[in-house]
């Protein structure tokens, strides 16, 4: 790190404002989404029609089947389906 005067320190503190709280909470909830996630993935593997609906419109398919499409769940499912 280069020499620090207080003005520079202040600029560096200012450079990292907090991320929106809802985003942070959603990312923190990933482990909780995990159980639901495993159920959804298992079902998608066994049920081609459900899988097709998930691929076509993930959020709508989750909501229609009684899963809350939280940002954490939606994002991790997208990652899962992309990597298959």
């Amino acid at each position, binding site marked *: 790190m*280069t020499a620090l005067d*207080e003005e520079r*320190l202040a600029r*560096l*503190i200012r450079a990292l404002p*907090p991320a929106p709280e809802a985003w942070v909470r959603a*990312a923190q909830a990933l482990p909780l989404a995990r159980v639901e996630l495993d159920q959804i993935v298992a079902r998608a593997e066994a049920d081609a029609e459900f899988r097709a609906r998930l691929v076509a419109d993930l959020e709508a398919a989750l909501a229609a089947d009684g899963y809350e499409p939280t940002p954490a769940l939606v994002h991790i499912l997208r*990652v899962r389906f992309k990597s298959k």
Partner: protein
Amino acid sequence: MASTLSDGELVARCRSGDQQAWADLVERFSRYVYAISVQAFRLSEADAEDVFQEVFARAYEHLDGLRDDAAVRPWLGQLTRRLCIDRLRSAARERPAGEEELERAGSDETMTMLEEALTVHEALAETPEHCREILDRFFARDESYRTIGDALELPAGTIASRISRCLARLRELLEGRTETGRPSSSR
């Protein structure tokens, strides 16, 4: 209360299924990931939110594959950078002006500055709570003296001097880290 574990210890706990450790890891790096997408790459809020969630979703999925637990910081930085570039690339395909934005975005200079900022925030987490709170509120959250005074029950006249004292304390702490050669990514 911020976790005092090193980055490596935090990652090891996440890997063993410790949910609180995961929450702490997200808290520790959330500002950095957010700043890369909105400051270095100037993504819209909607795109930045997608990148933010995808970074942590991928991190959660691939934590087992991280070769060096202590390297989580550059790993997350690179992952965020790559996802921001992907996002700008797909926008560039839709409108020609996007290519120019892509070339300007994510300069090394900005990335270096954000890494330094993260180091400063890590040091800030080690200062006494009254310092952490007032410096974060004033600089990072851009709160007025009045708002800070109301929240912390301080007369407005004492806020400037407290900020100045706390900045001096933070500087001492950072200079102490440099002198002892303490790595910035391990607490």
